[in-house]
């Protein structure tokens, strides 16, 4: 768009040189000459009043619209026309007439101020033409490049769309496959489940028998232990030495309590001990264990104690050292963990460690399980594949949803990043993604905004990109970046300016 505009400008500038001086009151453009007829009363251009012609440019403002003083500074809202032969004609505010500052390159604005102005129109015209020519060349190249990019983008887009259609077709097939495999899986899992349950139940029964036997053995042992006088009976007195059995935990096992535990009897024999055992087995501590607990001081470490003189590091030397070094670099939390033993309280060993591992499945069950596992694996794989395709479709959809310009000429910027290094910072622009800034000499990156939208004026929306919601500023809004695009041959970040620390950080001209 802008390239075409520049090309137009070239043809205009050719006509500058052809401008011819035509007599008219000072400051009047050729186009308005007919309103200023000498020796005829002048009517203000807004029609508000009519004045004698000698009051045109008499340094007094008679017309509200300033039209009677095109060549003086008398009217606050007037404008002065510089012909600028050799360059572009222009209008300047009347207030710049005879203010001692040269505004028109043909010096006509300073006719009575004593300012010594040089006519620079020809030189400016030459420079302008050169610049325009250069720009036109660049623009032409850029234009070609743009066409190329548009074509590429179009191709890419078509490809992407084609791929997406294909993937969507694939997806449907895959979806069907997933459903089919799900059914297969469910069918295979049913017998597997039943067989597993059977196996489990058999094992549970087996375990119950073993446990009962063990309990019986323990009971017998306990009976023997308790029966201190070996009279074949456990008496209340004998039981009372086991204070851990105290039901109300007041520290003393009273006679009554002991008797209650023995089922109300003063003493019990082996057979009646069975019912008493049920009352006490949960709390009962074997006398051999109770003795060792009383004698040994509580051990604070559950690791085997290591003698001081033993070269500890020889055991696990490399690991420990490396671990420590790593810890130093990261944080010393884990180091403390490994060095300081965790305080533990010695508890009586649970006697329930008798549970053996579940026996392996029988061959028949195993076959069912293997078969079911295969269906599961197949199903999972199919589902994963479907998800992958979904992701790909989403990603293509996202890319296709971006506004890459009227003809997709900005498509190639997608997923690219461009850096610019200034005296203080390295700026990074990743178009359609984010802008960031990193201090050159260390320090963390600052987010200057994520892709927001195209933000150029209505007629050239694609000249400006807006990145928003960057890191917040002190007492200010979140950072944001405006990227201005200009036509060129290559894609570079040309310059950056930071008008204020926030809001308007620009990473402007860049070209394509």
């Amino acid at each position: 768009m802008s390239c075409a505009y520049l090309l137009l400008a070239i043809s205009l500038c050719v006509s500058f040189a052809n401008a011819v001086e035509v007599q008219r009151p000072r400051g009047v453009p050729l186009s308005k000459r007919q309103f200023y007829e000498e020796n005829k009363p002048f009517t203000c251009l807004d029609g508000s009043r009519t004045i004698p012609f000698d009051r045109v440019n008499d340094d007094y403002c008679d017309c509200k619209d300033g039209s009677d003083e095109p060549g003086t500074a008398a009217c606050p809202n007037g404008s002065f026309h510089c012909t600028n032969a050799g360059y572009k004609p222009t209008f300047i505010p009347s207030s710049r007439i005879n203010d001692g500052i040269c505004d028109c390159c043909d010096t006509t604005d300073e006719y009575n101020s004593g300012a010594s102005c040089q006519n620079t129109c020809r030189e400016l015209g030459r420079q302008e033409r050169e610049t325009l020519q250069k720009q036109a060349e660049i623009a032409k190249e850029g234009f070609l490049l743009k066409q190329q990019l548009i074509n590429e983008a179009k191709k890419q887009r078509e490809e992407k769309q084609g791929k997406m259609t294909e993937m969507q077709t694939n997806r449907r097939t895959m979806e069907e496959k997933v459903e089919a495999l799900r059914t297969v899986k469910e069918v295979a899992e049913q017998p597997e489940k039943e067989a597993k349950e059977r196996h489990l139940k058999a094992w549970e029964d087996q375990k119950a028998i073993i446990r009962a036997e063990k309990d019986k053995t323990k009971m017998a042992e306990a009976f023997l232990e308790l029966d201190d006088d070996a009279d074949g009976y456990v008496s209340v007195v004998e039981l009372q030495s086991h204070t851990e059995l105290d039901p109300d935990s007041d520290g003393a096992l009273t006679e009554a309590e002991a008797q209650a535990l023995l089922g109300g009897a003063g003493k019990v024999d082996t057979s009646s001990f069975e019912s008493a055992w049920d009352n006490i087995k949960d709390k009962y501590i074997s006398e051999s264990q109770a003795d060792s607990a009383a004698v040994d001081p509580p051990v604070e470490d559950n690791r085997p104690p290591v003698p001081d003189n033993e070269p500890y590091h020889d055991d696990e030397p490399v690991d420990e050292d490396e671990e420590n070094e790593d810890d130093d670099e990261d944080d010393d939390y884990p180091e403390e963990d490994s060095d300081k033993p965790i305080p533990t309280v010695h508890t009586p060993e649970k006697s329930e460690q008798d549970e053996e591992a579940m026996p392996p499945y029988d061959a028949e069950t195993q076959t069912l399980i293997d078969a079911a596992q295969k269906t599961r694996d197949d199903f999972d794989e199919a589902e994963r594949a479907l998800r992958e395709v979904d992701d790909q479709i989403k990603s293509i959809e996202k890319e296709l949803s971006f506004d890459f310009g009227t003809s997709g000429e900005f498509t190639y910027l997608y997923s690219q990043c461009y850096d610019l290094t200034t005296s203080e910072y390295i700026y990074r622009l990743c178009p359609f993604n984010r802008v960031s800034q990193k201090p050159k000499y260390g320090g963390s990156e600052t987010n200057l905004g994520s892709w927001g939208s195209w933000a150029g004026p209505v007629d050239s929306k694609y000249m400006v990109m807006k990145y928003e919601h960057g890191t917040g500023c002190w007492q200010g809004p979140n950072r944001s970046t405006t990227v201005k695009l200009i036509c060129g041959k290559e894609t570079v970040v040309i310059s950056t300016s930071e008008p204020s620390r926030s809001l308007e950080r620009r990473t402007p001209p860049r070209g394509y």
Partner: protein
Amino acid sequence: MRNMAAPIDRMGLLLLTLLPVLFSISDAVDRSNFKTCEQSAFCKRQRDVKPGQSPYRALLETLELSDTRLTLQLINDNNKVRLLLELYRLQGNMTRVKINELKPLKPRYEVPDVLVKDPPTEPLSVLNRDENGVVLSLGADSQRLIISARPFRLDIVDGPNVLLSINSRGLLVFEHLRLRKDTKSETDTEQDVEQNVAEKGEGEEEVKEEEDQPGMWEETFKSHSDSKPNGPTSISLDFSFPGVEHVYGIPEHADTLKLKSTEGGDPYRLYNLDVFQYELHNPMALYGAVPVLLSHTTDRTMGVFWLNAAETWVDISSSASVQGGSEKSQTDVRWISESGIIDVFVMLGPRPTDVFSQYASLTGTQSFPPLAALAYHQCRWNYNDQEDVKAVDDGFDEHDIPYDFIWLDIEHTDGKRYFTWDPLKFSQPREMLQNLKDKKRKMVTIVDPHIKVDSGYKIHKEISSKGFYIKNKDGGDYEGWCWPGNAGYPDFTKPEMRAWWASMFAYDQYEGSMENLYTWNDMNEPSVFNGPEVTMHKDALHGAWEHRDVHNLYGFYVQMATAQGLIQRSGGVERPFVLTRAFFAGSQRYGAVWTGDNAAEWGHLKMSIPMCLSLGLVGISFCGADVGGFFKSPNPELLVRWYQAGAYQPFFRAHAHLDTPRREPWLFGPENTALIREAVRQRYTLLPYWYQLFYHAHRTGQPAMRPLWVEYPENAATFAIEDEFLLGKDLLVHPVTDEGSRGVTAHLPGEGEVWYDVHTYKKHQGNQNLYIPVTMNSIPVFQRGGSIISRKERVRRSSLCMQDDPYTLYVAVNAQGTAEGELYIDDGHTFNYEKQQFIHRRLTFAEGELSSSNLSPDSQFSTASWIEKVVFMGVTKPNAATLRTAGGLESALEFEFEPATELLSLRKPGVNAGADWTIQLR
């Protein structure tokens, strides 16, 4: 009328300001950084002394009267320490009261350099004398000074009326210098006793040994300790104003124009401090201090100037007094300072203008700024580099908004080394300045008084080698933390240091500087980031004196030396322009001040009026607030309203904090750009009037921006008005300072006066409260009937571009059909006006004749400016208008008349602005 409207007015105001205050709590000043009176040992000690019987007695037998002064000893009956009282009757209806120790252990600090000269005296004569006291005559009229002996007290009376009483509440306290008890050697003690005995009069009782109180010999605030080697040295004195309800002055505080009673709160504090995000309506100290208080009643205006540069607290209370049988209100004022002596100037008025002249005769008048300095200033922390400066400069032209000065804050320097430029961002300062000069514009760079300690930095090296740095208590160079990091603070109290500093502004010293570069002194309280209360340790040393003694003078001296530098670099030809943040009495002589780091809040916009009015009352006319607010970001409405208010305040500069979004006038859409453009243009059209006001401020000390009561001293309804103000006596401004305002109520003063809306020319009667509906482009401004104001209506890029432009005279006719005004013209930037190179015209309109006559026949100046138009407000349509020039030539002038507004415009008289002429309306 006023009274009826006022409550409604105030309610609206309250509701609108409440919200911002609530929201801003987290950002407000950290009060704990600054002392309360309770935390300031001497203030607490002094404030603990309650009114009552004074221990001081005048020893009348010691009275000595010479041509110029009266001296008299006072004795404190508790500790037998004698004081010396000196009384002077000064020319211009002033009385000076000085009290010092009769024989201090070592000299006490007396403030130098603030008074422009030794105030000329007039003879005092004793009218009556007995054992109870002495009556002195203060001139020919009925004014008397009465000295009462027991207890000591001074009363200034006018006929039967007591104007002012001193020590009537017995709050004179003079902590005499003493030896530290624990360090006294035996011989010292003996000598001490001998001395005491020697001094003791006959028959006097034993001296009561005073108990040391905590904080007398050492004081700690937060982590900072003050070693106080001299012990307690504070002073205090009370003043009572019978019949007075309104007192003003003692800036700088972000508080109301009319001072409030400090009972139940802290006193107003005068101690120059860099207060981060200051709070409104608070007696806390700010950046500057002018220890001058004005009292005003319908009968008389008076002033008290407490010449002391140490930390000072001012308590104000009101009570009732009985005078002449009827009960009257009374205002009691008590001054407390940490060190130095009591040196008080009582300015007896009687009119406001008299007090201004009296004070000006003591401390000088406002410096006459270059005309451009009265135009618009564009500032921000920071314009990033030369390209940025150019872009902003071009922006003003592109949007056709005039400006005269662009400012560079600290970032322009090479690592906060003042007098240098950042080598990357401002590599070609002369080129940049030349570009501005080509557009007839100027620049200001910041030069702060903290000097980076860096052996490779010329300024530091020289100050250090010359021994010009302030010393710490142990004798080494004092170092503190500021923008550059570790910094030294030059001792500006030394004349040699100031002379050297001034020489640094020479074009060959300040590299890259040019004649269109001017200076801004910031952080000169001085600000010390890691010092107590963000300033310097009080036990730091300025030669023989402690920083404690001179603190409030530091900024004054910095600006003095800088202004001297700008004068010297031009060989004494060009007027300087220097902006300062810290100031003291007399700072008006060296340039402009601004109200420091305000915030983009409506409350701060509103507060800019009383803050600048208070400064104007004490001589500092060239005052402004950062337009837009320094901290935070204004919404477009606030920014526009601030431009509109700022355009009618003396120092008109937009400024913003580094972390705020950019806010050049064109960044808020075309409508707001147009509104700001219009406000700035109004300023430029009025520059001739501003210039004339500053010429008068310079010549006479009358404030440029005035409270209404100054011109209407008998109209009690004006006494507390602080939402509108007068420029000179002819323009009344009521800025819109409320968000979403649909109208303002302006008080138009003066029974029988008329006021003309300067935008619509509509006539309004005086002595009324006028409701003015407003829109976003309204700036309610009225011209007083009876005045003639000159404008330049061809607004250009900068004021210098308008130098030769013609004038339009606005003749606003009063009820008597007359008007008068002045027109002052000179070259706008040199001291040649002192050599009579100026035009000063009197413009009068009476009996249908407008004439221009020479007010200063001895002066000589020629101007290219002429009179392009004369606008009359409030006249009837004439049949003819005839111009008669000096040669007696007569010519008819064309005119237009609008009956609806009684507006008459005369077309193009075309006479030179410096010529004699008359225009007759028939």
